[in-house]
């Protein structure tokens, strides 16, 4: 591991100042992803600014129903928070489906959003990877890509974003609060992560030195009717091979409103707008659900080994929507 400076920030402004001043400085949250990547030589910061003492460790329910989540709230605390468990079950379920108890105790909301892909080539510095070393190539296209993207990838990169939590937040239309060298701004969660295109090394739209301070989940009247379904290769402690976050509002047999996002199929949490649009105002039937999901997946591109994700996402989404519609016991 490369030697690095370590400091503990006592103000957000100070943290931003330190990181902004050094192009090779990084914020340190729970460290469960960053420290691993440093050991692998994938990240080589020469300065770490620990932000976990900053006061972004609360979950607050506003009068208008907005849930404000501090960036430093630990994943396990967020999952257990009463307002989340009852008001946003999809978020609680997504968190609890991720990693392990020990990791969730360390992992922060900010760090979880910014965790990097688990693509095996990205994690191995002895191999090419366009995300790690732009222009070096992508061995995954012909190599091991069983768990890589079928939506939103590009010629240069088919990495998937591995977070479960972010999929739930994408479905819920969350807003990310950021403070940086140029002041504060809000970013819709959907716009936090970017598709690789020609710049696969840039995971997000954040600028260097920008600090996530929290996430706001706007009030959604039917969020209580939401759920997360994750499929993985073992019963616990594995990243998703496909997941879906959904909230559904059915009235008189018709879909009044719906929120839908897919995980483990794209370089970002994939908000399924096409499917949502196809569902609104239509009958809440299995056939309707299936047609809507298939419309969303029409753009999917399968490689040799990851095509199974397409029917898989379709099946679990239809199943989950049926459950939420009360059609399946």
């Amino acid at each position, binding site marked *: 591991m490369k030697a690095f400076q370590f400091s503990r920030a006592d103000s957000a402004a100070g943290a931003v100042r330190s990181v902004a001043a050094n192009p090779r400085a990084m914020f340190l949250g729970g460290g469960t992803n960053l420290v691993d990547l440093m050991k692998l030589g994938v990240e080589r910061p020469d300065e770490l600014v620990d932000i976990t003492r900053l006061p972004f460790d609360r979950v607050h329910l506003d009068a208008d129903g907005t849930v404000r989540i501090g960036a430093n709230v630990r994943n396990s605390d967020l999952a257990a928070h009463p307002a989340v468990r009852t008001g946003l079950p999809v978020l609680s379920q997504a968190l609890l489906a991720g990693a392990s108890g020990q990791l969730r105790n360390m992992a922060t909301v900010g760090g979880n959003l910014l965790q990097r892909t688990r693509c095996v080539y990205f994690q191995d510095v002895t191999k090419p990877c366009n995300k790690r070393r732009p222009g070096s190539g992508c061995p995954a296209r*012909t190599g091991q890509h*069983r768990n890589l993207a079928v939506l939103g990838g590009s010629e240069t990169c088919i990495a998937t974003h591995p977070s479960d939590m972010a999929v739930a937040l994408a479905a819920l239309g969350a807003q990310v609060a950021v403070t940086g060298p140029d002041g504060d701004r809000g970013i819709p969660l959907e716009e936090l992560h970017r598709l690789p295109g020609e710049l696969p090394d840039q995971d997000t739209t954040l600028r260097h030195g920008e600090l996530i301070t929290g996430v706001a989940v706007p009030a959604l009247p039917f969020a209580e009717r939401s759920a997360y379904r994750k499929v993985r290769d073992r019963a616990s402690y594995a990243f998703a091979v496909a997941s879906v976050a959904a909230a559904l509002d059915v009235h008189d047999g018709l879909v009044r409103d719906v929120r839908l996002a897919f995980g483990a199929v794209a370089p970002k949490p994939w908000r399924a707008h096409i499917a949502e649009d196809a569902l609104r105002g239509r009958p809440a039937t299995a056939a309707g659900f299936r047609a809507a999901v298939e419309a969303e997946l029409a753009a999917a591109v399968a490689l040799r080994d990851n095509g199974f994700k397409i029917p898989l996402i379709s*099946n679990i989404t239809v199943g989950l929507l049926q459950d939420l519609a009360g059609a399946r016991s």
Partner: protein
Amino acid sequence: MSVTATRAVGSALGRIEGPAKVTGAAKYAGEQDDIQDVAYVWPVQSTIAKGRIRHIDDAPIRDRPQVLAVLTPDNAPHLQPLADAELAVLQTRNVAYRGQIVAAVVAQTLETAREAAEQLQIEYDEEAHDVELTQDHQSLYKPEHVNPSFPTDTEQGEVDHALATAAFSVDHTYETPALHNNPMEPHATLAIWHGDELTLYDSNQGAYSVQQTLAQLFDLDPAAVHVMSQHVGGGFGSKGTARVNAVLAAMSARLVRRPVKLALHRHHQFAVVGYRTPTIQRIKLGADADGRLTAISHDVVEQTSTLMEFAEQTAIATRIMYAAPNRRTTHRLARLDMPTPRWMRAPGECPGMYALESAMDELAIECDLDPLELRIRNEPARDPESGKPWSSRSLVECLRDGADRFGWAGRDPRPAVRYDGSWLVGTGVAASTYPAYAGPATAAARAERDGTFVVRITASDIGTGARTALTQIAADALRVGTDVVRVDIGDSAFGQANIAGGSMGTASWGWAVTKACTELREEVGRHGEIPVDGIEVHADTSAEIEARTGYKFQGFGAQFAEARVNVDTGEVRVPRLLGVFGVGRVINSRTARSQLIGGMTMGLSMALHEEGVLDPAFGDYVNHDLAEYHVASCADVTDIAAHWVDEQDDHVNPMGSKGIGEIGIVGTAAAVANAVHHATGVRVRDLPIRLDKLLGRLPTRTG
């Protein structure tokens, strides 16, 4: 042979070193914190699969503060060549596989060593590599024998004719992937030289064998090499013999003249310590109208490396499982530019029985027979291969007892008809087997004047409970309580003993301990009173082991699995796994159950999860950590139970015991695969049974 009367043996004595382990007081190889001035070595692995090192540029790191040495093939100490060519660390510029150790950095701190190692610039002349095992690989050849010394091929009768004329037959090919041992404690060594004497704290399955190997490599008298392995955090075969960690640590320590420690990283474990070879196995079975086997044929294709031969004995269990007049087994190896495969829990039996017991299930369906009944009908009265009588064989009892416990009776054989919501439910059975080997060993037993006893033997407790079982055996042979007996193990100074491998540890060491303790008891009896400096006797079981013939010594078992498969996703869950084993006398019911359940868990893991994923372009297993190489998690293992039948065996050894370390993993994957087939009607013939192999082949839901 008379089997010793027991008091301690058979009880559930808790692990003697348990409290030390859970409090952290037990020191493993890498934890000898009383040794001063330790330096660290970090290996550099090749990034090509085949070729030659052209140039190593150590200039940028050589003079860094804290860097003590950069080892390369150009300056590494010379080693004596051995049959185990993997141990010829840094003896050539040639590269035989990706991940092979090609250099190493020794530094005052681990961090410096690792960082410098990663900065080392190596240029290669790369050659085209060949890393993919196929059924008709151009390099396939017939080895002289398969491990350790079984015939490569066997043939009795007219197999092809019998198959052609059989009333029922099956002919299928089954595949198992590369599997990685992944003990909790990675391979680790602390090496210390005093002049020409070498001391190693090493994580291994046999300190005596490591001592002999290191002495040969460094051209020393074995007495000049001292290997200590008090506590070992698992090995599953991968620590069966000395590995590169011991060699590299010893080389480095010699070069920098101070103690050097090496604890391999999990990534290293996927290249340099061995793995289970992938296998491609074609099985043909023929049966008459009553379901009696007329022909058994088992052809195995597997891999070895270009460095040395490793020939897994995959078909040997097929040679002894069932009666059939016409039988054939073959093994062929492909020499690939890959690391050398090595032993992994039940090498041979484990992959072989997945194939055979899957094929038996397929045959049962062909014959319209209950799979249990098919096995019972083909029970051989004697070992079909050697014609020897069994010292004991309880397969039929295990099948029947297991069937009762599991609730097998009345099973509807139809596949894909039982739904529980979105889940298809099925059950499967398979047989298990593992030889009851024993090897010669030496032991010393001492009676102290204060009424206590000390036994010394170079046994190895790799987490199995060997230390505890040997204490029970010693106490019974001495006819005293376990509280006055101390068994010292894991030290090459105690003399020759076999490794913890081949499920023969307790049998072999227990035999020597029984002999030493029995003689000591007699000696003490003759003395009447114990003199001030105690009484010590030494025992060697070479003669007894030599005389151990006339029978086929083999354990058997039956495993039952329930599988649930989600029709929407292909997810597989195994809510119930039950095994019943005939393994002679069980010495410690607690540690034995843990071994059997552990084996079954690993078998479940093999069935559903484990797979070294090869990237043919690079020639390595790309999922080289425990986040990507999945082993079963607790949530995958819900209701798992191991039982044993009462099996008295007066021939096998003085304890009447058979090995239990490996039999638990044998057959499990077939039981699960058979249950998945019963649940879904889909037969997966290449492990692991991943959801994407099922999805798209599952019935569409009706219920």
